[in-house]
C-alpha cells in the first residue's frame, strides 16, 4: 500500500522494556497499515505484544522503563514517535482515540460521567460550557444510553459494565476521530452485552466513517468485525491478510493451530487440537530463528537458524514463515 492511501503506517516498530538493565523487546519488527475506514483486527494470545503495540502508537508506554527503540509510526505521513508531548496531546482523543478493556479502571471513580465527557471536548474544541454539556448528552444518546441527561450527573460505579463501556465509546468518538483503537473492548463483558457493544461499535464506525484497530484474543469477534486481520505471536506479526483468507486459507502454522484449537458450537469433537508448550516469556525469547519453533508442528532444523521475514505469498497475504519464504523455493514447493 502506498503512503497516500494509508491512514496509519507502522514500520519496523521495536518497543522494548528495560528489565534489570537489559532491553527486552515486547514488540519486535512489527509493520502493518490501516487504511481510512478500514477495520483491522490485531489478534494474539496474552504476551504477544498487541497491547504494547497499541500503547506505542498512543505514546502511552510507562515512561520509566518502556520505549520505542526503533521504527516509525506514521499517521497521515507524520511520525508520531517524533512529536512533542504537546503535539501528541492534540492528536490523542481528537484524531486517534482509544477504548480500553476494563471500563471501571479507565473511568475516574470520583468524577461524574458528565465531567469526564466534557473534558475531551474542552481540550479539543473552543465551545462554551453549555454547548459542551449539550454535546456530551447527545453523544451519550448516540451510544444508546436512554436517560443521558441524568447519567451525566452520575458516577461510574452507578453504571453497569456495559453502560460504562458505552460511556467510553461516547468519549472516544466525541471529536470524530479518524482512527479508533479498541483494546479488548468486550473482554470484560458478558456475551449478551458483548453482542450489544459490538453492534454499537459497528454502527458508530460506519456513521463516523473512522478506521478502527480492534485488539482481541477472540477469533469469534475477529470473524464478526474485521476487514483485515494481523496475527501476532511473541511480539511479531506472523500473518497479515483479509478476514476471509485468514479463516479459510490460513498459511502460518500458528494461525492454523490457533483456529483448530477453539471449540466450535456447530461440531462435536472428542478432542481439540492443541499447541504444545507455552508462549515464551519476554526474558526467554529465542534470540535466533523463528519464535514459534518450539511449538510448531511443521518445524524444520533450519527454523532455529534463520530469522523468518514477513513476506507476501500472494497479493494482500503476508506470512512470516520460512515454509513460504521465496528465498527457500525448494521448501515452498512442499506446502
Amino acid at each position, binding site marked *: 500500500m502506498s503512503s497516500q492511501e494509508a491512514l496509519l503506517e507502522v514500520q519496523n516498530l521495536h518497543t522494548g522494556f528495560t528489565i534489570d538493565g537489559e532491553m527486552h523487546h515486547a514488540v519486535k519488527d512489527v509493520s502493518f497499515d490501516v487504511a481510512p475506514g478500514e477495520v483491522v483486527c490485531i489478534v494474539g494470545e496474552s504476551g504477544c505484544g498487541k497491547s504494547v503495540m497499541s500503547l506505542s502508537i498512543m505514546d502511552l508506554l510507562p515512561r520509566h522503563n518502556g520505549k520505542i527503540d526503533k521504527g516509525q509510526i506514521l499517521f497521515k505521513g507524520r511520525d508520531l514517535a517524533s512529536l512533542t508531548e504537546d503535539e501528541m496531546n492534540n492528536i490523542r482523543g481528537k484524531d486517534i482515540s482509544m477504548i480500553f478493556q476494563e471500563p471501571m479502571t479507565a473511568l475516574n471513580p470520583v468524577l461524574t460521567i458528565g465531567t469526564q465527557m466534557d473534558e475531551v471536548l474542552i481540550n479539543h474544541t473552543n465551545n462554551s460550557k453549555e454547548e459542551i454539556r449539550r454535546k456530551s448528552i447527545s453523544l451519550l444518546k448516540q451510544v444508546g444510553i436512554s436517560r443521558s441527561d441524568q447519567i451525566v450527573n452520575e458516577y461510574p460505579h452507578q453504571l453497569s459494565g456495559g453502560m460504562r463501556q458505552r460511556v467510553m465509546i461516547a468519549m472516544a468518538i466525541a471529536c470524530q476521530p479518524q482512527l479508533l483503537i479498541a483494546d479488548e473492548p468486550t473482554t470484560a463483558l*458478558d*456475551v449478551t452485552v458483548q453482542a450489544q457493544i459490538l453492534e454499537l461499535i459497528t454502527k458508530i464506525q460506519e456513521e463516523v466513517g473512522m478506521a478502527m484497530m480492534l485488539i482481541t484474543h477472540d477469533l469469534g469477534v475477529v*470473524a464478526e468485525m474485521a476487514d483485515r486481520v494481523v496475527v501476532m505471536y511473541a511480539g511479531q506479526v506472523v500473518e497479515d491478510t483479509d478476514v476471509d483468507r485468514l*479463516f479459510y486459507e490460513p498459511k502460518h502454522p500458528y494461525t492454523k*493451530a490457533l483456529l483448530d484449537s*477453539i*471449540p466450535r458450537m456447530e461440531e462435536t469433537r472428542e478432542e481439540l487440537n492443541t499447541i504444545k508448550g507455552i508462549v515464551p516469556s519476554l526474558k526467554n525469547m529465542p534470540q535466533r530463528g523463528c519464535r514459534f519453533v518450539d511449538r510448531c508442528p511443521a518445524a524444520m532444523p533450519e527454523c532455529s537458524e534463520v530469522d523468518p521475514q514477513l513476506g507476501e505469498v500472494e497479493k494482500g497475504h503476508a506470512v512470516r514463515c520460512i515454509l513460504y519464504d521465496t528465498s527457500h523455493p525448494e521448501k515452498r514447493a512442499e506446502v
Partner: protein
Amino acid sequence: MTNETQTSEYLLQVEELKKYYPVRGGFLRRKVGDVKAVDNISLELKRGETFGLVGESGCGKSTAGRTITRLFKPTEGTIKFEGRDITRLRGSELRDLRSDIQMVFQDPYASLNPKMMVGSIVSEPLVNYGHGSETKLKDQVMELLSRVGLPQDAYYKYPHEFSGGQRQRIGIARALALKPKLIVADEPVSALDVSVQSQVLNLLKELQEEFNLTLLFIAHDLSVVKHMSDRIGVMYLGNLVEVADADDIYHDPKHPYTQALISAIPRPDPRNKSDRVILSGDVPSPQNPPVGCPFHPRCPKAMPECSEKKPQLKEVNTEHRVSCLLYE
C-alpha cells in the same frame, strides 16, 4: 422410581436448592433483604457424565457449584449424594464427604498456596485423609503429576515457577488425589489462553474417562461447555431456565434466553455470521429480581402473563426441560 434405581443411576440429586445471602443495613445491621444468588434449582447428575452449567456473570452458577459441594450452607432444598441426604451434614461426616467431592477453581493464581511446594500441595489431601506412608505418598504424587502432564521435578518447585496452564494442571492433580467420585470444575479454563485452554480441556476429558469421574463443569462460554458436556443446564438470575442434551441445547434451544445466548456468541466463521437476537438492557439485580419470569424484562417473546406468573421447569421433550410460559 425406587430408591435403589436412583442410587445406581444418579450420583447427585439436587432438589429445589436455594442459597440466599442476607443484606444488612442501617445502624443495627438488621437484615433488610436477600440476594437470591441461587433461587430454586433442581438437577441431577448421572454417574460418569459431564453436566455443564452455563450462564452469565451473576447468574449464580458458581454459588450453585459451591453450595452443591457444601462449601456453602444451603438456605433451602435438599442435596443427595449417592442417595444420601448431605444437605445438613456437619463435622466429621462432612469431612468424609469431601474426599468424594473435589473442586477445581477458576483462578490458578489464587487457588494454590504460593509458599507451598507443588509436592506438598498435591499431597496435602492425601495426608489429611491419612493415605499412605511418606515414601508411598511421594510415589503417589509423582504418579499424579505425570498423569496431568507435569514433569517429575515439578514436585520441588513452587506455583510461581509455572505458567497458568501448568498451574491449572496442579489444581487438577490435587483434586484427583483422593480419587473423588465428583469433581466440580468452576470456570477451569477462563483464565487461560486459547492454545493452552484446549490442552486443559483435553486433559479433563481424558481423566474423566480414565477415572470414571462425574464432572460438573461450570463456565460462561457456551462453546466450551458444549464441547465438554453430555447435558447442559442454562442459568439465569439464580434459576435454571433450560436443561437438555448438549446437542439439543445447540440445535433446538427452547427458552428465549438460551436462544439469545447462542445467537450472541461470535462465530469464528466470517462467511456465516449469526443472525443476532440482541437483548436489551442488563441482567437485573438478584437482590430485587423481577416478579414473574426473571427473564421477562429482557425477553423478546414476553407476554403479559410473564410478569405475573413464575414459570416452573417442566419437561417438554424427553430429557429436555424448560422453564417458560410459552411451553406450558
